[in-house]
């Protein structure tokens, strides 16, 4: 269900991809997002400014605008959870390498994403953040994560938002995943009308 939006402010023809960053509290979601979005030369990051949640990047020689929906600070808003997921094309599932519980949460989040998007294959990437921590603090075994991700064919990357390791690579990889998915998505859509597309259904009935 690749959603290509037309933003009035956008350059015509520019590909727009909505990415959602999810994960349990304290794994460094917001730091990842800010690290990716922030202009390195400004000291102040004001999240209320429109431009501060989007970035134009070039992946494999093709430009695209990436809009980030970050769920940081909204763990308590159970009501908004599905809405966040509905709004995205690609998903960044973040856990912290020093928090075993957060990896378990990622597994649950994955199920939830698939359920909300009503599809078996949704572009996503699993991210183990805080790889800068000393080895003795690691709680999540690398081999377990790799086995899990390999089995599901979901890319996995270790990152450190703090020391800027693999942050840009993560977002670039996810853009690639979204692009891979696109042709499949349109096929799927033709076969079974997507849920949540109220308006489309309505106009469909006019034909009857």
């Amino acid at each position, binding site marked *: 269900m690749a959603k290509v939006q037309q933003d009035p402010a956008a350059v015509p023809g520019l590909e727009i991809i909505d990415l959602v960053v999810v994960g349990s509290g304290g794994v460094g979601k917001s730091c990842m997002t*800010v690290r990716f979005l922030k202009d390195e030369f400004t*000291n*102040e990051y004001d*999240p209320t400014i429109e431009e501060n949640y989007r970035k134009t990047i070039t992946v494999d020689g093709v430009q695209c605008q990436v809009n980030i929906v970050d769920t940081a600070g909204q763990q308590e808003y159970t009501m908004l959870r*599905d809405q966040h997921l509905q709004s995205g094309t690609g998903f960044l599932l973040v856990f912290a390498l020093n928090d075993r519980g957060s990896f378990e949460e990622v597994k649950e989040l994955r199920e939830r994403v698939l359920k909300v998007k009503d599809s078996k294959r949704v572009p996503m990437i699993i991210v183990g953040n805080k790889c800068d921590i000393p080895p003795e603090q690691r709680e999540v075994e690398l081999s377990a994560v790799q086995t899990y991700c390999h089995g599901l064919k979901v890319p996995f990357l270790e990152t450190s938002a703090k020391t800027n390791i693999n942050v840009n690579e993560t977002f670039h990889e996810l853009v690639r995943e979204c692009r891979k998915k696109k042709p499949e998505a349109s096929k799927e859509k033709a076969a079974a009308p997507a*849920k949540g597309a*109220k308006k489309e259904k309505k106009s469909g009935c*006019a034909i009857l």
Partner: protein
Amino acid sequence: MLSARLLAEQLTLVDIHLFRAIKSSEFSIYLWGRSEERSIRSRHLLEYIERFNQVGFWAATIVLTQSHAKDRARAIEKLVRVAKHCVRLHNFNSAMAILSGLTMAPVNRLKKTWLCVPTRAMAELSELEELFRYSSNFKSYRHLEHTATPPMLPFFGLFIKDLVFMNDGNQRSLPTLGDMDGSASTSSRSGISTSYSSTPNEKVHGDQPQTKPEPLFNFEKASLVHGKVATVHFLQKHTYSFTPDVTPIPNRGMAPTPSPSSTPSTAIHLLAMPTVRAVTRRASAAPVSRGSGSFPVPDGRRRSIANSEISPTSSVAAAGDSTADALGPRVSLDSHNTVATASGPVVTMYEYCRGLPTLDEKTLDRISRELEAPPPAANRGVAPSGGSGATLIVPSFAAAGDGGTSAVDPNKVEYNSVERVVAAS
């Protein structure tokens, strides 16, 4: 039927009461406190967040507890109007909550129901959705909030998110001139807790980068965070001019319709009563199942709800012995508005809005799947849910519930879709 305006007003009164209870210090605990500390020392803040969920789940519950698609559509229509009134009252928080309730997957997937929603209500809903759209970082909503005058209840989810990003997105201290090699752009969660929090936070000092010269304090960050918290402080000074409504809620629409074969009920059970015992006692002949709370549960599904858990945060205390229990444990206000009658306590409009009845997500999801499952696919679709009551229920109501509606409604459906096409072109 109670007016949408009154409902919106009373919801708003409850909201502002909770909003005004939040202390500025709670924000610092929320941002920088330990998780076990949060639940105690930022209690009001969490209560207000929970209120958002409550309103949202209530909206979904109201829709899903109607037996007929037409009634569900009318409930949606009504809730859209309530949300519109909330916007008019600048209660953006509850407007957004109702909207989330209506866009929640269990409600969203009710195809037949959505086809019955009048065109005008659909247009109003799209308007609201447009207003609260995520795109461009809530551009339209931010504009609205910026231009609105107090009293106002901002969409708190966005507020909290902004606050978290201001905290996480800006480093606590800035590099000195001799340290501009980029390594200092590290953002840490430690924040500027010392300015707001009264708790000694050793971690803050421990996290400080080991730079030779004294690092510069990032005043921009402090200013951003302070500005945000000050907004809340400012808004808390304002109240609404209307008062709690003490009219007892009329009995109409409280009891569930006795049988599915009866004529389609015209009453919207927007007033699913929170006082379990009052209702059951008075209408002792009415078959309200135990544990189903106070909902006018659609026939045939009564059992499935009875078997399911009522969410722990739900304000419906099924076994509650006192009015206070039934009104929800989380919001503890004095119950001076309770009007006692011979037949038991009757709830006022204000109290109803305070203890909005809700069902938990799982139950809503199951009801939703059962409600509009197409008869041939019903067995296939329901089997995985594995609920003890589920398999029993589906056949009976596939025949009674929506089968009838689809037969009744084709005109309306056609009318709707034609209108939409006209509107779209």
